[in-house]
C-alpha cells in the first residue's frame, strides 16, 4: 500500500534525522550545495578538498579538546584560549632554546603538557567554584587570559631575533615557523597526492592518534567516572565518585589538548600568532563539535571528527565560491560568523534546565 509506505518512509526519515541530528544534516547539505556551486562556477574541486582536509587536520585537536570538558558537565570549553596561550608560550620558549625542526616540535609538545596541566588544574578549580554558570565564566576567563598574555608577550625578555620586533622589545605578532624549519613539518610526513588532492598524512595520523587516545581515555575507569558525573551528578555522587575532582581532571585534559592543538595548528599554518589571535579561537572549535552532533552536555570523539570536517569543509568551500558569485564582497566571512555563532546559539538553547 502506497500510504503505509509513505508513513513508513517518514518514520525512517525521522529516525535518520534524530540519529544524525538536525544541525549536522543542515550543515552537510549546505556544504554539498556550496560544492556544487563551486563546481558550476568552475573552482578547482581538488584544491577545495585539499584545503578542507588540511584545515580539518589542523583544527582537529582543538575541537577534540571540547570532548572532555563537555563530558565532565562543565559544558563546551569556551576558555580554550587558556590552553592555546600555554601552547604558544611553549612554542616561543622552544624557539628561544634555539632548536629547530622536529626537535622544536617535540620540545614545544613536552613543554606544553606540564604547563597546560598546571594551568588547567587552576581553571578546573575555578569551574567548580562557579557551578551553574560555567560557560559564561569560561568565555570571559579565556578573554582575560589572552589580554594578560598580550602584556606578557611584550615583556618577555626573549632575545632570539627570529621572533622579536625589529626595533624595540617584546615578541612579534606573527612568528614565521619557517625560521625554525617547522612550517608544515607534520603535514609533510608521508604526504602524497591523489588526483590533485594533497593528503597531509602526518597531520591526519597525528589527529587520528589523539582521537584514539581520547576515545581510550573515556573507556578507562577515570573516563567513565568523568562521563557519569557529567550525565548525572546525583548518580555519580551516590556511587561514591568525587565529581569535583573528576571535573578538574577533565578540564586539565581539555586545556592540554588545547595547548597541543595550537602547536599542530601553527605548524600547518606556518605561523605562530600571538597577542589577540587566540581571543576568538574557542568559538570555531565549539561550533565544530556541536555541528558534529554533540550537545552542550554530551559529546563523543566521533562528533569532533565529523564536526571538524563539516565545519572546516564548509568554510573552505564557501569562501572562494562566495567570492566568485558575489565578487567584491566579504560575504563569506559574514556567512562564517552566522554559521559559527548560529550553531553555538542553537546548541545553547537546547541545554535542558538544570543541565549541571
Amino acid at each position: 500500500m502506497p500510504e503505509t509506505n509513505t508513513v513508513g518512509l517518514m518514520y525512517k526519515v525521522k529516525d535518520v534525522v534524530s540519529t544524525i541530528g538536525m544541525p549536522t544534516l543542515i550543515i552537510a547539505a549546505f556544504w554539498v550545495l556550496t560544492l556544487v556551486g563551486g563546481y558550476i562556477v568552475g573552482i578547482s574541486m581538488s584544491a577545495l578538498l585539499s584545503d578542507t582536509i588540511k584545515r580539518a587536520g589542523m583544527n582537529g585537536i582543538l575541537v577534540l579538546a571540547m570532548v572532555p570538558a563537555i563530558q565532565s558537565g562543565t559544558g563546551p570549553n569556551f576558555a580554550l584560549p587558556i590552553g592555546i596561550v600555554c601552547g604558544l608560550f611553549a612554542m616561543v620558549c622552544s624557539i628561544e632554546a634555539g632548536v629547530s625542526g622536529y626537535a622544536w616540535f617535540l620540545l614545544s609538545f613536552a613543554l606544553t603538557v606540564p604547563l597546560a596541566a598546571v594551568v588547567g588544574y587552576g581553571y578546573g578549580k575555578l569551574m567548580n567554584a562557579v557551578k551553574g554558570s560555567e560557560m559564561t565564566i569560561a568565555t570571559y576567563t579565556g578573554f582575560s587570559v589572552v589580554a594578560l598574555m598580550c602584556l606578557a608577550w611584550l615583556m618577555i625578555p626573549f632575545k632570539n631575533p627570529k621572533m622579536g620586533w625589529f626595533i624595540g622589545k617584546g615578541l612579534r605578532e606573527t612568528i614565521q615557523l619557517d625560521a625554525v624549519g617547522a612550517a608544515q613539518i607534520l603535514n609533510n610526513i608521508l604526504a602524497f597526492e591523489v588526483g590533485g588532492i594533497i593528503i597531509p598524512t602526518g597531520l591526519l595520523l597525528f589527529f587520528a592518534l589523539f582521537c584514539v587516545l581520547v576515545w581510550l581515555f573515556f573507556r578507562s575507569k577515570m573516563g567513565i567516572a568523568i562521563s557519569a558525573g557529567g550525565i548525572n551528578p546525583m548518580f555519580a555522587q551516590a556511587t561514591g565518585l568525587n565529581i569535583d575532582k573528576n571535573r578538574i581532571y577533565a578540564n586539565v585534559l581539555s586545556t592540554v589538548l588545547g595547548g597541543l592543538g595550537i602547536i599542530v595548528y601553527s605548524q600547518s599554518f606556518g605561523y605562530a600568532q600571538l597577542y589577540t589571535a587566540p581571543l576568538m579561537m574557542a568559538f570555531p572549535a565549539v561550533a565544530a563539535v556541536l555541528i558534529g552532533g554533540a550537545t552542550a552536555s554530551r559529546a563523543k570523539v566521533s562528533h569532533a571528527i565529523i564536526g571538524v570536517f563539516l565545519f572546516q569543509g564548509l568554510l573552505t568551500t564557501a569562501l572562494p565560491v562566495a567570492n566568485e558569485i558575489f565578487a567584491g564582497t566579504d560575504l563569506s566571512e559574514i556567512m562564517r560568523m552566522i554559521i559559527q555563532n548560529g550553531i553555538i546559539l542553537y546548541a545553547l538553547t537546547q541545554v535542558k534546565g538544570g543541565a549541571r
Partner: protein
Amino acid sequence: MLLSENLLSFRNVSKSYYGNTVLSNINIEVKKGEIHALIGENGAGKSTLMNILFGMPVIHTTGGYEGEILIDGQKTDIRSPYEAMQAGIGMVHQEFMLIPQYTIAENIKLNREITTPNAVSRVLGKRLETIDMAKMNEHARKALDTLDMNIEAYTMIAGLPVGHMQFIEIAREIDKTGIKILVFDEPTAVLTESEAQNLLAAIKRLAGMGIGIMFISHRLDEIVSVADRVTILRDGEHVATKDIGDTNAAEIASLMIGRKVSIARDCSECRELSDEVELRIEDLHVAMPGESVRGISLDIRKGEIVGIGGLAGQGKLGIANGIMGTYPARGKVIFRGNELTLNDPHSVIKSGIAFVSEDRKGVGLLLNESVELNIAFTAMQTNDRFMIKAACMAFQNDREMRKHALKMIEDLDIRCESPLQQTGSLSGGNQQKVCVARALTQEPTFLFVSEPTRGIDIGAKKLILDLLLKLNEQLGMTIVMTSSELAELRSICDRIVIVCEGRVVGVLPPDATDAEFGLLMSGSKINTAERSPENA
C-alpha cells in the same frame, strides 16, 4: 452557632487523569461555622479535591471533573483560582507565600492594595495610583486583631518566627471581603507545639465568626481536638464522614489505613533470627530537604528484613540517604563493629552496603547509557571489577561486562532488547530491576531499598518483592526497605519501624492492626504500641 446552613457541598465529585481514577463519588458538606477535617494517606486524593475546589489549571487541562460543587446552595463552576477567590474561598498554604522584604500590611494587601488617584495615574491609568499606606495598615490591623495578634502591621516579614508567618497568611485570607470558606492545608506541619496550639485556637475563633473551615491534617490528635466532623479518604474514595463525638483517633486511623490486599509472608513467625546486630544507628541526623531525620537510633540484626514506614515528608527516606552519603548526615553508624565514615559514599559502598535509591530516574540510573554499563558501574568504580589493567590505567572490559549483564538479565528477568539498550527506554519495573542488579553486582551483604515499587505496575511489584525475599532467604542478605506502601512492608518485613517527624515513633510487627499503624504514622501520642519489638 447553628450548624445548619451548607456553605460548601461536593456532590458526587469524581476525577480521573488519563483514565486513571483518582477520586470517585466524593460527597462532603461543610456547614457555616463548622471545622471539617479531611484526612487520608498520601495519594488518597486530598490535593486533587482541593485543586478542584480552587479551579487549578491542572484539573481543567486534563478534562475537568464530574459531579458538582455548591457554594451557599448555588451550583458553582470554578474555572480558575481567581474565580475561587471571588466565590469567597481562601487557602492557607503549608509553605508560606509571603514576600520577606515587604511589611505585614503590604503582604496582606498584596495585589489588592488600597490606592488613591494622583496626577500621573489620571493620565496613565489606575495602576500608577498612590498606595494609601495608612489605610492599608488600618485594614491589616483589623485582620490581625481578629486573630489576636498584637504585632505592628508595618513590621517586615523577614525575621518573624514561622508561627507568625502562618498567622499573616491567615490574616491575608480573612482580610479579603466576603471570605466564606477557608482551607488549611496542614497548617501545623512546620509549627512548634505552642504555635500550633495558638493556631488551633485561632481556627476555632474563625469558625465562631461563621466561616466554614476545611482542615487538612495528618495529626490525629489535632483533628480530634479541633474538628466538628471528619471525612476520611482512602485511595480516592470517600470512606466515611463522622462526627468527632462519635469516633476516636483509633477508629479514624484504622479507617485511613484500611485493610489492603496483602501478600503475607509464608512463614514469618517461624523465622529464627540471630541476635547479632549488623548495623547500629545512633542518633542519626540527616539534612535531606523535605525528609529530614532528627535523631534516629536503630539496631538492625543480621539476616532480617526491616521495613521503614511513615507518611511522606516525615523523614523515612532520609535514613538510607544519610547513611549512604547522598545527603549530609551526622551521628554514629556502626556496621559489623566498624564505624562508618558518614558523608563518604565511597567508603560506605566499599564496606559492603548497597543502596537502591527511591529516585530511580534521578539517582538510580544513567538513563542514556546501556543496561550493561548501568549494572556494572558501581562495582567498576568502587571494586575495580570489569576492568583490564594496561599501562598503569584501567580500561573497561567489555566481555566481562556483557557476560555479567546477560547473567543478571536472566536471573532477574529484566525485559530488554539487549544489554546495550538504554535504560531510559525500559519500563519502570525493569528499570528497578536494573537498579537492583547494580546493587547486587557490588556483592553486598547489606541492602538498603527505598520505595522499590514506586511507579511500577502491580505485577512487577510482586516480582520485585519476591526478589527481595529471595535475596534475604537464599543469600542471607540483611535488607532495610523503606516504603510509603504499608501493605508492601507488611508483606515481606520481619518488623516495621514507623518514622514520624524525623524520629522513630514505634516498631510494629507486620501483623499489628491497622489502627496501631495509623496512630503511629500520625504521630499520635496515644501509646497503643505496647507490643514491643521483641514480639516481632
